[in-house]
């Protein structure tokens, strides 16, 4: 098994500092967040430029080049609702450290993002949903199959789709969280890879409780085969949990200084 893949979520236009940096084409705040995440062990960086309806293509190309030129062609998840911007980003993307990831497709309005990934030999995050959060695992697996078929029809390798079961919020939907874990196990049993936005789990919980919930869910999900996540790698507790689980699962070799490496 390969080790858990961490997609760093912190270059996101929802952050005022990053939004301003995008607007001004100011590299500093973006490079700072990229470095923090890479130093903390991120494998991929998510580059979320928001809806980017105007100027998205140029912005995405600027962002991809900025990150790859400064960080040894770091692999990137290109994250926007603007498909043309993703395509433009891939045009300038250097693949030496990993394929680009298209973030994201679903089985509804966004199914064409699978086509986009297939046409550009990219990976894609495939949300197992159509409209909102799926009601149960029958739905999740049906959407997963739909997305898988779509990708394979267009020549994709099944492992180039990262299926997101959609983590639900504990507050209010606590009774359904085990379903998500079960879905991860079912998708893994099909020989497929998974990912997801983990922090959704603890949304709305007090700040000191959130890492606890995130870590517990992550560890349980990894036991079910969860293979990557979109997270804040600078969360020390989470990072340590990932390393510990990777060791327990024999994904990485143990050494006394494994946390410091």
């Amino acid at each position, binding site marked *: 098994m390969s080790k858990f893949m961490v997609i760093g979520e912190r270059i996101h236009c929802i952050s005022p500092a990053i939004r301003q940096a995008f607007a001004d084409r100011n590299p500093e705040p973006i490079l700072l967040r990229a470095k923090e995440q890479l130093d903390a062990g991120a494998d991929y960086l998510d580059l979320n430029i928001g809806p980017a309806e105007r100027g998205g293509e140029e912005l995405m190309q600027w962002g991809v080049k900025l990150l790859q030129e400064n960080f040894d062609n770091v692999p990137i998840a290109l994250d926007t609702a603007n498909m043309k911007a993703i395509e433009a980003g891939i045009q300038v993307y250097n693949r030496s450290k990993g394929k680009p990831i298209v973030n994201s497709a679903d089985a509804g309005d966004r199914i064409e993002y699978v086509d986009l990934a297939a046409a550009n030999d990219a990976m894609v995050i495939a949300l197992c949903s159509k409209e909102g959060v799926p009601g149960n695992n029958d739905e999740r697996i049906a959407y997963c199959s739909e997305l898988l078929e779509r990708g394979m029809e267009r020549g994709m390798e099944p492992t180039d789709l990262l299926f997101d079961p959609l983590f639900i919020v504990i507050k209010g939907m606590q009774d359904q969280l085990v379903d998500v874990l079960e879905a991860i196990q079912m998708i893994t049993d099909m020989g497929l890879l998974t990912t997801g936005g983990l922090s959704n789990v603890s949304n709305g919980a007090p700040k000191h409780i959130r890492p606890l919930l995130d870590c517990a869910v992550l560890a349980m999900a990894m036991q079910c085969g969860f293979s990557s996540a979109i997270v804040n790698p600078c969360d020390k507790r989470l990072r340590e949990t990932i390393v510990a689980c990777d060791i327990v699962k024999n994904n990485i070799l*143990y050494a006394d200084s494994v946390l410091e490496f």
Partner: protein
Amino acid sequence: MPYKKAEQKFSGKINVCEIGVGDATISIGGENSLPFLGTEGFKTAVGIAISDTTGDWSDCFGTIYGDDLKNPAALAKAAVEKSGADFLLIKLESADPNGADASIESCVATAVAVEAAINVPLVVEGCKNAEKDAKLLEEVAKALEGKNVVLFSAVEDNYKTIGAAGGMAYGQKVSAESAVDINLAKQLNILLTQLGVKSKDIVMDVGTAAAGYGFEYVASTMDRIRLAGLGQNDEALQMPIVTNVSNESWGVKEAVSTLEDAPEWGDQEARGIGMEVTTASACVVGGSNAIIVRHPESAKTIKALVAGIIG
């Protein structure tokens, strides 16, 4: 149905490590596949081992080297000529406090003389006393500055001195010795890297056993190290592996027993070579990027084996 070659693709790659200077430079490592299975060609470097203490060496070496056995510089030159080896290892065994306890100065002088006598890269092995080796290899690193030698080897108890001297102050290569302990192999690489030694200046001495003497454990250790480096892209295990099989191979009863001791086993020299070649070839296919033997015939045989596999 046409034959389709199944190839396992790995995300990781073994570092390239250069040893020696000028025309004599050799590079080891660089593969992104298990040994001999890649398209790039996996070429194991073959080294010949000598020592400043050859009193307990098998009689056959007296026949091969004559009086040169007592003179490390002359022995070095003869060993390289007779074996055609890619590099040479000098073991400064006389430094051992529990043995001859020779001074650091005299051992350093030996290393310098040996280096001057040969035109291939040099590996300097200590006496396996951690405290003495720290001082000894530090001084060797200093005296041979600019020669890009391998300090063989740093252990948990002396890696700071040897790493700082060799890998940083005097620009040598540092070998990290882990005695067939995979977790320690990774740990030492992490510690050396944290100290400031560059990954490309580190090689791994993961240890060995003579064939038939628990070698399975060596084989699985090498396998796991390589699979972690290649498959898991574990940067703390992507250093080339250097294995000296000479001490183990020539120390077991099959090599040590004389013809009088065991007449039914036949010629002692052939037995020693047999043990050494068997052990060395197992290490070569297990992933050693450089292999070190004592007998010139062993060196030639392993070189031919490697050339034959590569084709």
